[in-house]
């Protein structure tokens, strides 16, 4: 097997640079690459373009990068949980490209799979479709969307092995599998790192070929955004 392990988040991110485009897995605060985000804060990487479904909350997730104004542009589908984000966006400090969630997922998946462009009905007739090619299929209008391009994908998985094979847990899976291999370099942090051969080959969510670097995350807070319980 081809070994993908690195020793630390610091080693995994040693070549990240200002001005790069990053993909970050996660939905809300679930399944976000906490260790990679902390390291981006540490290194004070600037002028980042982020492809991430959400923008974190004011004091966690991508909110930590927003607070330090490290982010130049966000490509997201929903940012309603972050007041600082909304302030920077409405004031024009932050560029924002809001795109439909399914289109965001499919543009990641297209990049991963070498599909440069595809048609989708999502956003037809809205401002999302402005400037995009429209074509009818079976009488229904669709718009042409393109694969993303990114320098790094930062991924959070549940378990991984030294060959880079990944397993995700519950709804913390979300965008993470679709972003693996969708950027030039895919960096994965896992809660549990095992030897190649310990995971059942039939139940691997993402094969190691889509992963360049994997490490065991030092800590995961796994903050819950809206704790709701039964009476």
């Amino acid at each position: 097997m081809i070994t993908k392990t690195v020793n630390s988040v610091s080693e995994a991110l040693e070549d990240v640079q200002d001005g790069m485009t990053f993909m970050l897995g996660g939905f809300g605060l679930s399944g976000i690459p906490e260790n990679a985000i902390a390291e981006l804060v540490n290194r004070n990487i600037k002028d980042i373009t982020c492809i991430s479904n959400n923008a974190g909350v004011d004091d966690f997730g991508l909110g930590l990068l927003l607070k330090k104004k490290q982010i130049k542009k966000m490509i997201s589908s929903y940012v309603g949980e972050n007041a600082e984000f909304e302030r920077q966006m409405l004031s024009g400090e932050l560029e924002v490209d809001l795109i439909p969630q399914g289109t965001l997922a499919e543009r990641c998946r297209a990049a991963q799979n070498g599909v440069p462009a595809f048609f989708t009905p999502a956003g037809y007739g809205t401002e999302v479709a402005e400037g995009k090619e429209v074509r009818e299929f079976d009488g229904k209008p669709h718009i042409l969307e393109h694969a993303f391009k990114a320098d790094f994908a930062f991924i959070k998985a549940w378990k991984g092995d030294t060959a880079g094979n990944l397993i995700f847990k519950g709804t913390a899976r979300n965008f993470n599998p679709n972003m693996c291999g969708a950027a030039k370099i895919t960096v994965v942090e896992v809660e549990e790192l095992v030897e190649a051969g310990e995971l059942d080959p039939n139940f691997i969510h993402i094969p190691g070929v889509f992963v360049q670097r994997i490490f065991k995350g030092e800590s995961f807070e796994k903050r819950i955004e809206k704790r709701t319980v039964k009476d």
Partner: protein
Amino acid sequence: MLDKNGIAKRIAQEVKNGYYVNLGIGIPTLVANFVRDDIEVEFQSENGILGMGPFPTETQVDADLINAGKQTITALPGASFFDSALSFGMIRGQHVDLTILGAMEVAQDGNIANWKIPGKMVKGMGGAMDLVGSAKNIIVAMMHTNKAGQSKLLKSCSLPLTGVKCVTKIVTNLAVLDIVDGQFKLIERAPGVSVEEIKKATEGDLIVEGDVPEMKF
């Protein structure tokens, strides 16, 4: 006049045996509480679960198990988890039978606006554009008028659109309406609400045919 739970309860009557249903944030989430328990229904949440169950107990709470509203949830026996691309594949591929979502405005041509107020509020569309772009059956759950008392059922939407010609039914605190031939057709009145009150609260063209029945619960 209905409260939010009343709207949800009325919409629950539209959920049929064998339906896969996507519930939006807000009133739609409440619909799950009122679906008959003698029919087979599965709830999909677009962040990646089919077979979503009720909120967890304190000990069941799991950060890795949330719904599209970021609330902690549970998974029922027979549930499955999947990635976002496949989740929206389900939606785009019309495998989900019914979508229930909120709106700021609905127009009589079936257009809907629910994600942006220019220069003011920008939450983003989330999965709404994918849902309304593909769903066969879209019910909007909302108050008939906004906080300023203005109608949310319009001749045409003034806010940036989420989707075009897609809404099939609207359930509000005042009424059930279908979109028929580019007009709102009044189907049912909320208990104690008159046709006149509904007319007054509806800016768009309203078709009223014969005696309009009151909702039954």
